[in-house]
């Protein structure tokens, strides 16, 4: 396997060789690494913007950020976190893991894979450069409602629109690649209903991406023509409607939030059985639940628009559909608990993050359910209660999920074990910090603090201060994580092939680190796991 020569690169200087390797690569592992680093870099940038937000909200009054600049920070923070951190992070994991988990030699279209990746750094350069343009960066929120973003948008909006187009191209091509890989390159014997759940959830995610990213592209295209070519999609005087923008946007937007969580569900479904040393409970219902969530996600978008003046029967339909999502999601949560039940659990860092994911995501799901009740949403909508909701599903959801995955698979990627002690410190500080930051937002929201405001009245001051302190702590934990990752890449205890005692699946049959090329011939399935082989560290 290892005998295969490296891709032939003519003799060049080390720098050129380095550039050539990363710019021209078609290897899924290298591309996965690129995605993960891009995501991590943008996490620091988007996080730094969150720090500006929290610094400004530390006390009432204008401290550091002028109102217009504050709005730019909120907008860019939301956009970067959603499109630049969580999505590329998950794609990076998919690149690394899907071929390893289904026994494929690579992604189905390796060149396209590289293309999908390299679009992104350019797209974000375009987006970030708008911060330095005359009139500043986009300042209309990550939901860019018309007409604030059309008629009233800053000049840089055009660059934002084109940037979104580029991200869309990247995501759609990436998703096509994932789907085709999964359908075509599974090792013989691995039927669809035997695929690991991470692969299943990614398959569904990729389907969602193909369905909704083009719609996002459509809505920004209409923005562009409204801004420059005189059309009136979003203007009543011409017979259009600003609400139409919201409908089209949220038709994309709601499936998008499940794009941001489904791979996380998959990760939890890989990790929990491993450390409970017990098979995943209810595999089939897990698959059906994911599919049901994906289906329902197309018919609930109106729950973001309850105060926008839709007819009452429309509001009711959206409310019922939204509430229904709690059922398949609940099935997932219950299945995870049942997997742990009477297992034999140990709590290494990946398991800790997975458990943190399940608990805190569920709390975010609960507040989502409360938001779904239309009359109650009249009070919650556009307050910090919503901000609390989505940070609970996004931070301890999507981000904890990604971090759990990194701890779980990094021994396979680098061949080294991470520092377990630091990993635990990371987890516990992160859990405390996340709750300190985001839990008080429920209270400020209920007390009536609108979101996206640069300055607030005095009764909200105390909880905001707590949030800001929590956010500073949360910022520090990211630096710790960076340190842990670099330390692991540099060295550490050598990881064995199976790495985790309870681990099951094809990725644990290749050596650690996984060689440049794996599975050039289809591996046997189901894999034969080496029972004695593991470097589990815990008691």
């Amino acid at each position: 396997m290892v005998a295969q020569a490296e891709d032939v690169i003519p003799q060049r200087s080390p720098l050129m060789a380095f550039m050539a390797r990363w710019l021209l690569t078609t290897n899924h592992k290298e591309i996965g690494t690129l995605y993960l680093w891009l995501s991590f870099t943008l996490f620091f940038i988007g996080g730094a913007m969150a720090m500006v937000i929290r610094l400004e909200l530390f006390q009432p009054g204008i401290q550091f950020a002028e109102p217009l600049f504050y709005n730019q920070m909120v907008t860019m923070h939301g956009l970067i976190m959603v499109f630049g951190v969580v999505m590329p992070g998950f794609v990076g994991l998919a690149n690394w893991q899907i071929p390893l988990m289904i026994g494929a030699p690579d992604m189905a279209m390796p060149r396209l894979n590289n293309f999908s990746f390299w679009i992104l750094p350019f797209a974000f350069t375009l987006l970030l450069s708008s911060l330095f343009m005359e009139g500043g960066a986009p300042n209309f929120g990550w939901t860019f409602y018309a007409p604030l973003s059309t008629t009233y948008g800053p000049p840089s909006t055009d660059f934002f629109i084109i940037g979104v187009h580029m991200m869309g191209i990247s995501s759609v091509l990436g998703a096509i690649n994932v789907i085709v890989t999964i359908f075509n390159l599974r090792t013989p014997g691995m039927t669809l209903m035997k695929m690991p759940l991470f692969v299943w959830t990614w398959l569904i995610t990729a389907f969602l991406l193909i369905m909704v990213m083009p719609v996002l592209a459509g809505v920004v295209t209409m923005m562009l023509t409204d801004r420059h070519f005189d059309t009136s999609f979003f203007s009543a005087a011409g017979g259009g409607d600003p609400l139409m923008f919201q409908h089209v946007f949220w038709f994309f937007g709601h499936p998008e939030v499940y794009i941001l969580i489904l791979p996380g569900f998959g990760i939890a479904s890989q990790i929990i059985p491993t450390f409970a040393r017990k098979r995943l409970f209810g595999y089939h219902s897990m698959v059906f639940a994911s599919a049901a969530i994906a289906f329902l996600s197309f018919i609930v978008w109106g729950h973001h628009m309850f105060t926008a003046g839709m007819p009452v029967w429309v509001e009711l339909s959206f409310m019922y559909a939204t509430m229904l999502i709690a059922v398949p999601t609940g099935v997932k949560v219950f299945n995870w608990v049942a997997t742990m039940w009477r297992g034999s659990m140990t709590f290494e860092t990946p398991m800790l993050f997975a458990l943190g994911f399940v608990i805190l995501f569920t709390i975010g799901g609960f507040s989502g359910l409360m938001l779904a009740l239309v009359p109650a949403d009249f009070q919650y909508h556009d307050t910090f209660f919503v901000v609390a909701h989505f940070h609970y599903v996004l931070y301890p959801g999507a981000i904890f999920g990604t971090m759990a995955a990194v701890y779980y698979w990094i021994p396979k990627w680098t061949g080294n074990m991470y520092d377990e002690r630091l990993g635990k410190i990371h987890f516990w500080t992160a859990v405390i910090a996340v709750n300190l930051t985001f839990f008080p937002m429920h209270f400020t929201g209920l007390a009536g603090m609108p979101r996206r405001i640069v300055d607030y009245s005095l009764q909200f001051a105390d909880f905001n201060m707590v949030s800001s302190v929590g956010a500073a702590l949360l910022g520090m934990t990211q630096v710790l994580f960076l340190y842990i990752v670099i330390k692991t890449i540099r060295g550490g205890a050598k990881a064995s092939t199976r790495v985790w005692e309870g681990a099951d699946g094809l990725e644990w049959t290749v050596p650690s680190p996984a060689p440049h090329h794996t599975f050039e011939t289809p591996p046997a399935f189901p894999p034969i796991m080496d029972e004695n082989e593991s470097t589990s560290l815990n008691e």
Partner: protein
Amino acid sequence: MNEAAPRYYVPHSSPWPIIGSTALFVTAFGAASFIHQSTEKVAAEGSFGQPIFFTGLALIAFMMFGWFSIVIKESIRGMNSGLLDRTYRMGMAWFILSEVMFFGAFFGALFYARIVSVPWLAGASNNLETHVLLWPDFADTWPLFMTPGGDATEAMEAWGLPFINTVILVSSSLTVTFAHWALRKNSRLPLVIWLATTVVLGATFLALQVVEYIHAYTELGLSMGAGIYGSTFFMLTGFHGAHVTMGTIMLTVMLLRCLSGHFSSENHFAFEAVTWYWHFVDVVWLFLFTFVYWF
């Protein structure tokens, strides 16, 4: 295929993707600057956007040419195992689905305007006060002859040019199928004739579309600024026209490749992909004809 080769062909590192993403970036940056600079507020900044945009387009063409030529080489060398062929087929099918959704957004806008926003502005559903207080003179019609803001337009007649165009596009879908049959039977001459006919039909369609636009702007007062009717009309037909243009270019390339004997009766996926695309464009047109022009 070589016995010892891995079961799946994994290409070596390639310069084309990075060239492609750079090209896309240049095009995107150029397009944004171009559009941005055409507004009066910043017109003074000059217009480097336009040349950058066209440079980008040229780069994209260069990339496509280079990238596809290696794929073609691989295909001719027989490296496309059955599996890779399936990969390309599936990839193309999912790509077309994404295009369907792209059109879906614009059709969604059309239906929204017809079913929701225009009736609401005229007082339907829970918007009686909208009509009474804001737009008392506005009447709900489709096509929208008079916008709430008072811009007048005339509607495009369905049974003139648009109908002729429908006939043209449907026949082109047939001719391309004939070409495909000919290719499967390995009969070169009918293949080339039918394919060339398809290209000509596509080009004719486009030419008529231009005539129609000129007619709309100069005689009907139907422009992009003519309210939501004009907006959806030009967005849908224009976006479709862009696809026909792409399709015609691709068909032309296929014609050239047929002339240089690239395809065999079994191995001609590129050709099929283009026919799928062409049929897709045709089906979209039928929806367009029905909902934009006819009803």
